[in-house]
Structures are given as structure tokens and as C-alpha cells.
């Protein structure tokens, strides 16, 4: 399976990845100029956190081999796709228990702040044939996609 590999030393906190993720998951199509940067519906699926020493931790979903989020999900809304190996979310099955939010060891599942009914998590940009948008725009090459064993 493909996974985003992080080289945290290289990240300079520019958040280009953040804008790209928001752009990839906005409800209405448009250009980066008219992406509503204030709209919580457009929140990115990852987080860039300062490490307190002048550097950054880019935190991206690992689409874990044994995902705790999937393990915690009673309703089956989270599943590891048998083909791609990516952990995908089916909103229609979600019971809004937020157990996944509690159990991801990296904090990679976010409760949706608008509806409070669903979660936001990385879908590996599954609808985009060119793959993860965050990776494509990182000017520092701090993140890249690699084939790993599931």
C-alpha cells in the first residue's frame, strides 16, 4: 500500500499542505483564490504542530497496518480498504460516538465542528487520480508517498 512518509526535519510550517487539503475537500469547486479559509467545513485532514524548538511536526494519517481508529469504531463506519489499504470513512454508518477521535494515537481524526455529527479524516485523496494533494504542493519535500507493505 501507499503511505505518506514524513521527514519532519524538512518541514518549515508553511501549511501549503493544509491549504491543498482544504482545497481538495471543499464542497463547491473553485480556485485556491476563492477557497473560504474561514469556513470550518473546509478544515484540513492533517495538522502541522510547532515542536517548540523552531521546527514542526507534520501530522498525517498513517493509514496504520492495525488501525486503532478502525478497532474502536463499533458501527463499521471506519474500514481499512482491502485493495488500497487506506482507512476510509463511511459517513452514513457513523454513530457519532467519537471513539475514533479518542483512540487514534496521533490525533488524526477530528470531529467536524460544523455538524458535530461526523468526523474528518484523511482519505488519501482517493478521488484524485494524482494522489495526495498535500504531498504535491509541499515545497520542502517534507512529505512524500512511498509503497510500503500493508
Amino acid at each position: 500500500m501507499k503511505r505518506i512518509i514524513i521527514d519532519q526535519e524538512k518541514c518549515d510550517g508553511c501549511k501549503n499542505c493544509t491549504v491543498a487539503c482544504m482545497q481538495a475537500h471543499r464542497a463547491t469547486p473553485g480556485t485556491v483564490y476563492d477557497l473560504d479559509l474561514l469556513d470550518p467545513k473546509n478544515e484540513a485532514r492533517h495538522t502541522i504542530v510547532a515542536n517548540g524548538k523552531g521546527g514542526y511536526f507534520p501530522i498525517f494519517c498513517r493509514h496504520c497496518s492495525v488501525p486503532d481508529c478502525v478497532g474502536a469504531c463499533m458501527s463499521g463506519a471506519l474500514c481499512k480498504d482491502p485493495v488500497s489499504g487506506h482507512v476510509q470513512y463511511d459517513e452514513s454508518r457513523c454513530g457519532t460516538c467519537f471513539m475514533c477521535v479518542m483512540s487514534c494515537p496521533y490525533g488524526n481524526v477530528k470531529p467536524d465542528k460544523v455538524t458535530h455529527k461526523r468526523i474528518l479524516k484523511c482519505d488519501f485523496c482517493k478521488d484524485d487520480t494524482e494522489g495526495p494533494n498535500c504531498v504535491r504542493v509541499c515545497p520542502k519535500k517534507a512529505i512524500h508517498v512511498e509503497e510500503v507493505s500493508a
Partner: protein
Amino acid sequence: MNESCYGCSTCASADKPLEGFIAKLPMETSHHRVESQETKCGFGLQGVCCRLCANGPCRITPESPRGICGATADVMVTRNLLRAVAAGSGCYIHVVENTALNLKNTALEKGKLKGLGALERLCKTFGVSGKDDHEKALNVANAVLEDLYKPEYVKMDLVEKMAYPPRFKVWKELGILPGGAKSEVFKGVVKCSTNLNSDPVNMLIDCLRLGISTGIYGLTLTNLLNDVLLGEPEIRMAPVGLRVIDPDYINIMITGHQHTMFVHLQERLIAPDVVAKAKAVGAKGFKLVGCTCVGQDLQLRGAHYTEIFNGHAGNNYTSEAILATGAIDAVLSEFNCTLPGIETVCDTLSIKQICIDDVAKKANAELKQFVFAERGKHSEEIIDAIIASYKERRPKVKLNLLPEHGYENNLTGVSEVSLKKFLGGNWKPLVDLIVSGDIKGVAGVVGCSSLVAGGHDVLTVALVKELIARDIIVLTAGCSSGGIENCGLMVPEAAELAGPKLKAVCKKLGIPPVLNFGPCLAIGRLEIVATELAETIGIDIPQLPLVLSAAQWLEEQALADGCFGLALGLPLHLGLPPFITGSKVATQVLTEDMKSLTGGQVIINADAKESADLLEKIIQEKRRALKI
């Protein structure tokens, strides 16, 4: 041609021969760097990155909707915009200040005034006179300088004299009449500094005020003062493109906006003793090769400079290619757009760089700060330095010319005066053509050339083609002109590309469907045309079937120009947004609410066909409102 090209991944250009030439060059140019700068910061694009204080940079996201100080996206955007507009205005005000000073000094020295018609018109407009032409010129220059130096709380006198009365009334009602132009720039930069103004609308209003002082003084008056000193434009045909470079001469590429600084040097370069010096080192003499807006201005007034000026080679982003021909021996610069990137090209080809105004001092350039009283001495020093450069470099530099580039017969010398004269002394013939629908409307395609929005001049040229195909006549000013003419749209044969009605008009008059007013400063001339057309019809400017497009606006000066367009009440198209879309207030005011304030509006679209549709629709609406 070149065994070792630097890298062929250059950006597209509307000018295909130029694109091919640049892709094969053995050195790096701006066109090569577009690719490596392709990843743009989304916060920057939307104008919501603030680093006005040590807490920054602060950026706007759903999780961080305000900066640390509490600044909203609206505050960040409008502060950044006001800062850019104030800086852009400062640039043009610097140009008009120097132009007025040069006119004043020439008048005091009883030097040559080449445009007495322009002087008379200015005297009449300003209500000044004098016992002779020199005293008149002195009084005109002083009237401009006195206004520029007024404090911000004292309104400038010439605004009312220059402006179209219905517009002046609107500006007065809106409270946007400018005080002293330099002080307005000062106020602008104060207002947008850290933790001062946080009222987005208040800052946008300031942009309009700066637009008026920029437009009337920096643009319109600079042209008219130049006319007095340098001679008025006369309609004629001229060659453009890299073909204008003649390697048999010592060639000086000029960049900038302040043509009055070259007057003395230009005359010396054709003096027999100086030509003899050139001949002594094996050249036929000297030639000035036009580049950027100062080249456009020389082209415009070319009737007065046939001996020294060989033609306009290209715009800002053609400058590196012009140098790369190897046949340029020196660059003489005095303002933008003198790209930092020319330094490496000049180094590679041993081209001497000389700067005569330190506001545009290049790292490699020798500074010969222009001082009126010392211009004689400086001219000789500059001539000697350039001859030395020629002698040193020519034997070792391989030429890489492109003599087939560009076009031979381009209509130039178009101004508010020469065009009217061409039409028979009044605007009625043009108004009649507009009323009959033979000309559907007028589009001013102005401003810069950039390497975004499709590439070098790509959107500009495509938009112009769309507009003329819809029978909309295009008037140009700025570096866009340089791109459009190098793409062949200013030769009379370009009439073939126009819609059937415009084509017939062009063929009858023997003109191209795109009329070149010259440098970006000449946006001021277009605005005189707009005013006089409105006057002839008896309407206000926003009612005219006239639109503006700065499709490939590049810099802060263009934003200040744009604010003048908005103050005049004109629809202003931009290919890419000026870093404002992160603010809902700024976007709403500029694209919608402005219509009810001044009549103007900003239209943002990067697609040539869609943009032309939008502009055509506005023109049609205006025609309907006028019942034509």
C-alpha cells in the same frame, strides 16, 4: 543554435518566436524560473498572511480566524492592499516629481521645449501664463510641484482643473479628493502600519484617494509635462521586436519610466564628436534600443528621435532576451521595470550597467545619479564608459540575433491629441461609429506583462484577440503594448483578425484594430480620451461603453492605476486577483459595492474568452442604457 541550452522548461509566451529563442538560451532568465516557483502559498495568494509585527506571520484558517492581535482576514487584506497602493502611488509620484523638476530646470536654463502646443493646453487648463514660453513652462512645472508638496490636509489645486466636472462632484461627495500627493502616500503607509487602522472600508476609501492623485499627477500630468519637454506624439509607422537591434552600432538598452533624464545624453549621442568616438572603435554610431515603458515612450515620440532611437524591442519580460542577443553594450536604467534578473545576464555577456536614479540601483550597476546641473559631465562619463564596454566586449561575445523577430510596420504615436487630429480634429467620427455599432465599444488593455495567467502576455494577447473579434476596438498602454505589438496586432493587416464591422472601419482608415498609446503612464492619455468622449456625448464616464483590463497586472503601480480606473467609474478586469480574495469585505466592495460608489467595479477572470464575454456584456448593457 545554442549547443548548451540552460534548460528548456521555460514558461509559455504569446510571442512564440520569443518563447523558442528563450528556451534555447544558454543562460537562465525569468522565463526559466517560473517552474521552480510554481508552488504558491495559498495564504499569500488570498492576502491573509500578515507579518506586520513580531508576532507574525499570522495566517487565517478555520482553526485560526484571527491574527494574534485580533486582526481579521478583512483587516489583513485591506492593510496589505493599501500598503501596495501607497507604494505604487509613491512610484508614480516620484516620476512626476522628477519630470516636473526637469521641466522647471530646463525652463530656468532657457533650454529647448519641443511641445509648445502641449504647453499652451496646460497653461489654459491650469489658468497660468507667462511672458514667454520658458516662463510659462516654469509656472506650469511649479504649479505641479506645489501641489505634490502640499500637506495631506490641504487639497491639491489642479485636481478640479484636470478632472471632468461630473467626476469631481462625485469625488467631492465621497470625500476622496486628495491632499498633497506625497503626503497621501505618507498617510497611506502610516494607516496600514501595525495596530493602527482596522476598518477595512476606511482603508479601501484611501485606496481610491491615492488612485486619484496617482492618476491625475503620476499618469496624466507626467505625459503632458513630457510632451512639453520631449515633443508630442505623432502618428507614424515603426518597427518592433528584436529586429530593431542593429549590431553595427553601439547599442544602449534603456529601462525605466523617466524619459526626461535622457534628454541631454540622447542629444550628445548623435553629436558629430561623439559619433566620431564611436567610429574610432569600429561602430557606426550609437543607438538606443527601447525596452519597458521608457522604450514605449520613445517609440510614441519617435518622430522626434528618428536618428538615435532604433525602435522598441520588447517589454519588461523581454529584457533578458534582448540582452541575450549579445548586441547590447550597456543598460541605462532609471526606474522599474529593471528586473534584478538582468544582472546575471549582463555579467555573462559583459554588458555595462549604469543607473541614473538610485531608486532603481542594480547591484552590478555603476550609479551616476542624475543631477540636472551636472548632466553635461555625466553624459560624457557615461558615453566613455559605454565605449569602453563596447571595445572590451564585442571581440569576445558571440552574437545571437533574431533579426526576423517582431514586425516592421506598427502604428505608433497615438495620443489623445494625435488621434483626435487623425479623426479630423474632433471625436465625432469615433462617437458616430460607436453609436452606429460599427465599433461596439472601447477596451483599454493596459498595464504590465507578467509570467503568470498563462505565461508571458498569454492572457493579454488572447483577450485582445477575443475583444477585436467582437468589434470592440482596443487601446493599449504599458508593457502589455510591447507584448501585443510583438505578436503582430498593431500592424494594419491585423484588421483581418477583427470582427466584420471593426475590420471594415480599420481597412477604411488604414489602421490596426489595436491602437498603442505607449507607456503605462499613457493610461492617463486613455483616460483623457474617455473624458473627452463622455464630454462629446454629454454623459459621465461610467456611462460610456468603455472597459479597462489590466489582464496581466504585475506590480504595485498597476494597483494604484487600477484605483484611478475605479475612481473614474470604469469596469476594471484583472486576470488574477490582487491578493484580496481572503477578505469577504474587500471582495464585496471592489467587485460589487463600488458600482454604487463611483460606478466602477473589479472583474476577476483568468480565461480570455470568459473575460471577453463579461466585458462585452458590460459594454452591451451600457449601450442599452444609452439607447444605442
